[in-house]
């Protein structure tokens, strides 16, 4: 059983704290997209539930949100980050959970081979969404320079005092 995680490339400009924030936002986006929109990592609607399963779950066949006990999605998190990338996924040690995630992503659901058309790969993010998130956290060098410049000008203006004349 493979460890369920996804490596997402981001700009190398982001500092560690920004990478953590970006990672958390990506997790948030995946959860919203899965639970509310019912869409996979490519923005496509999840394939419908089997009638029996939907009945047991008490929802319509089209109301696919991959959420039954909420155990799986609750455990999605930022695993690690380094310059230019964040890794989102599940703890390596939890084999049962990784199995469940793999089942959903590949569409195996306990079978040896994937059931055609039943793969619901939620682990990932579309480029346009990633760009939006990155933009939010991007404090460019120019912006930083401007902040320093303004602060320095203020400091000199207020910090140099003329006495006795």
């Amino acid at each position: 059983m493979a460890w369920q995680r996804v490596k997402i490339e981001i700009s190398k400009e982001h500092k560690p704290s920004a990478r953590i924030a970006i990672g958390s936002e990506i997790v948030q986006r995946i959860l919203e997209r899965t639970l509310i929109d019912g869409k996979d990592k490519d923005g496509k609607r999840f394939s419908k539930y089997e009638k029996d399963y939907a009945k047991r779950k008490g929802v319509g066949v089209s109301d696919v949100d991959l959420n039954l006990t909420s155990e799986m999605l609750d455990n999605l998190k930022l695993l690690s980050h380094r310059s230019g990338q964040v890794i989102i996924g599940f703890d390596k040690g939890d084999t049962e959970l990784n199995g469940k995630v793999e089942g959903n992503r590949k569409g195996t659901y306990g079978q040896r081979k994937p059931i055609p058309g039943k793969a619901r790969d939620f682990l990932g993010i579309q480029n346009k969404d990633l760009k939006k998130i990155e933009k939010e956290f991007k404090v460019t060098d120019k912006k930083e320079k401007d902040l320093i410049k303004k602060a320095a000008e203020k400091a000199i203006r207020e910090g140099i005092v003329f006495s006795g004349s």
Partner: protein
Amino acid sequence: MAAKKDIARIQKKIDRAIKKEFQAKQAKTYGQLAVKTIVDRTRKGKGLNGDKLQKLDRLSDSYIETRKRYRKNLSKTTSPRKSNLTATGQMLRSLTFRSKNRKIELFFKGRRKRELTGKGSGRRNVDVASFANLFRPFFGLTKRESNSIAKVLAKNVSTAIRRIK
């Protein structure tokens, strides 16, 4: 929102770095620069008009005659007709600074050893400067001048921040 948080984080770092730069040891750089700016500009015959520089008012004819008479006592940085707030040069030489409560205070230090006539008067340099500043304002910095000192501060802050990261 998140970008704002990142900006706030950087701003905090900038403020911390500026505070450090205004501590006694580092403040020397900015104090010296401020003194040099005022002294060099004044020796060139330029004073202040609000936030702008302007040529210092010309000297009165009688004073020019006095300066001619005591030419041998005149500082090498002036001439009898030159209006640059310099006779013996003691006043501008006495301009100095001290670092106090995270501020850099510019002030005129000590008493005069001799006047243009060659006789001692015991007047304080600060009194001479106060009088000169009334009619030929020079003690201060224009926005452009303080911004050029701020550029040095900004460079040092930028380096300090990179070190923190």
